[in-house]
């Protein structure tokens, strides 16, 4: 089983649309959406949820106000500025700032702070017309997106093993921080979807550095390449310099938006140049993993 992770650095370059096409083209894959705080792949794949699972991760500090003596030791030791004074001169934890480190629980002299497990979201196992899918939803303003990403990947890999699938295809998050690192470590191949803009180039270089840092092989697709053909050349040269093979170019194509509005992947929506390019790219991806 091989795990392919689609990322981009910059948002909005077409990661999810292209992941959807890969899902349609792969004949024997488990699909995973690791962009857990703005997950969109389900809108193309229309998963039918088979099981819902709570995602419990970390703990949340809660002061029992009746037992709080108002000494302020918790506030003094909190490195995250997460403890506030109440109008009654007691203390409470601001859940949006709390990182769940347990220091306040430890230092409270009267043990007035509870530390229950934190319900951060849900993850789902589903069926789609292209095979099984694991996806998730992080609760509003929640922490631990990296751990939820790891959960989604582990569950998708376990399912792939159980069902003897050839691929796990992962739709990754934007950026280079904790959820991205959790998405790529130990994967077989990173596919970076970029666009020929100065921002797209800047952000691609950073994700390629990240791929090298974690020793994961990477390749690059330039989407909307004809917006700026010179920049496309520059980006493909940058990719080669970072040992990432440019796998192909996809033209600017309104059909992506139309397909999205219709809840379909591009390869189901239409035929034509973009679909041909993506099909060739997918064949190259498969070859690279042989």
């Amino acid at each position, binding site marked *: 089983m091989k795990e392919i992770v689609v990322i981009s650095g*910059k948002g909005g370059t077409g990661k999810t649309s292209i992941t959807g096409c890969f899902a349609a083209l792969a004949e024997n894959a488990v699909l995973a959406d690791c962009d857990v*705080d703005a997950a969109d792949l389900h809108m193309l794949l229309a998963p039918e949820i088979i099981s819902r699972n709570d995602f419990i991760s970390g703990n949340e500090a809660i002061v029992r106000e009746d037992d709080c003596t108002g000494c302020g030791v918790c506030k003094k030791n909190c490195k995250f500025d997460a403890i506030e004074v109440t109008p009654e001169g007691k203390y409470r934890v601001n859940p949006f700032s709390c990182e*769940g480190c347990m220091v306040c629980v430890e230092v409270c002299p009267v043990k007035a702070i509870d530390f229950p497990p934190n319900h951060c979201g849900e993850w789902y196992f589903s069926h789609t017309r292209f095979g099984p899918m694991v996806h998730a939803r992080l609760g509003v303003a929640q922490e631990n997106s990296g751990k939820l990403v790891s959960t989604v990947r582990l569950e998708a890999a376990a399912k792939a093993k159980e069902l003897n699938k050839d691929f796990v295809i992962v739709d990754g998050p934007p950026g280079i921080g904790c959820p991205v690192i959790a998405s790529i470590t130990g994967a077989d191949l990173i596919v970076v979807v970029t666009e020929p803009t100065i921002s797209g180039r800047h952000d691609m270089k950073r994700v390629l550095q990240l791929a090298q*840092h974690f020793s994961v092989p990477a390749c690059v697709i330039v989407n909307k390449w004809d917006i700026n053909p010179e920049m496309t050349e520059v980006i493909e040269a940058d990719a080669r310099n970072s040992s990432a093979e440019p796998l192909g170019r996809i033209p600017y194509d309104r059909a992506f938006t139309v397909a999205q509005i219709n809840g379909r992947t591009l390869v189901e929506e239409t035929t034509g140049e973009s679909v041909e390019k993506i099909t060739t790219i997918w064949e190259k991806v498969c070859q690279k993993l042989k």
Partner: protein
Amino acid sequence: MRIAVASGKGGTGKTTVAVALSMAVSEKVLYADCDVEEPNGSIFLRPEISRTEKVLVEVPEIDEEKCISCGKCAKFCQFNALVSLGTPPLVFPELCHSCGGCAIVCPTDSISWKKVSIGEITVGSADSGRVSVIQGKLNVGSSLAPPVIRQVKSHIADDILTVIDCPPGTACPVIESLDGADYVLLVTEPTPFGLHDLILAVDTVRVLGMPFSVVINRFDEGDDGVENYCKNEKIHIMAKIPHRRSMAEVYSRGGILFDAIPEMLDLFKSIPQMIERGIEVE
């Protein structure tokens, strides 16, 4: 006044809007790039950099002479940044949140603090000094964006109009960036993905109790889902930016919104006043 520019989905035009707003107003403005994983504002503002500073966080360092290998620190650490197998603990600095807990529970006072750099802040100015630019950049391989964002925000003064360019999503880096803002502009695009992620972003700013409105980018290119949603939810639409292929080309070269669509300038100029009035009403 601090105006945060955010969005659930990436690539909807947050930076385009934040840069346009900073360039449209005639007063002094601070542009703070809190999208520290992929900061792009400077590509368009091209500030003259006056100084840079490192973002340092403290991670534990173990004195193996004093350590009795009791494992209490590793057991306490909520982030698995310390691992002890009957030995002095191994430290994984990239997982450390610098909470200080390990040193508090250590019975032999064997833990001291070592500063490591996880990012960089650059300070500069653009548009002949009118626009101050603060950018945070997370080092590649570091995972924790919030301390870099906190340091960007430490440069914000209260008496100057500030535009905060937020990261995408709804998780902790976004919450950190929004904290302390007076108003949020949520930038979206009129597609099913744009709408789905806008709803998540609206849920987030509502949980945080912040006043907000929506900017629809490329409003004439998709469907009417976003506009219908805003109408039903009684959410004000602050601006609708038309789709122009020329905008994509201008953007690709590092140009700003008004280079492609100059008729948007007057609207953007008036956004701070419109927000001011709106805040008074609420």
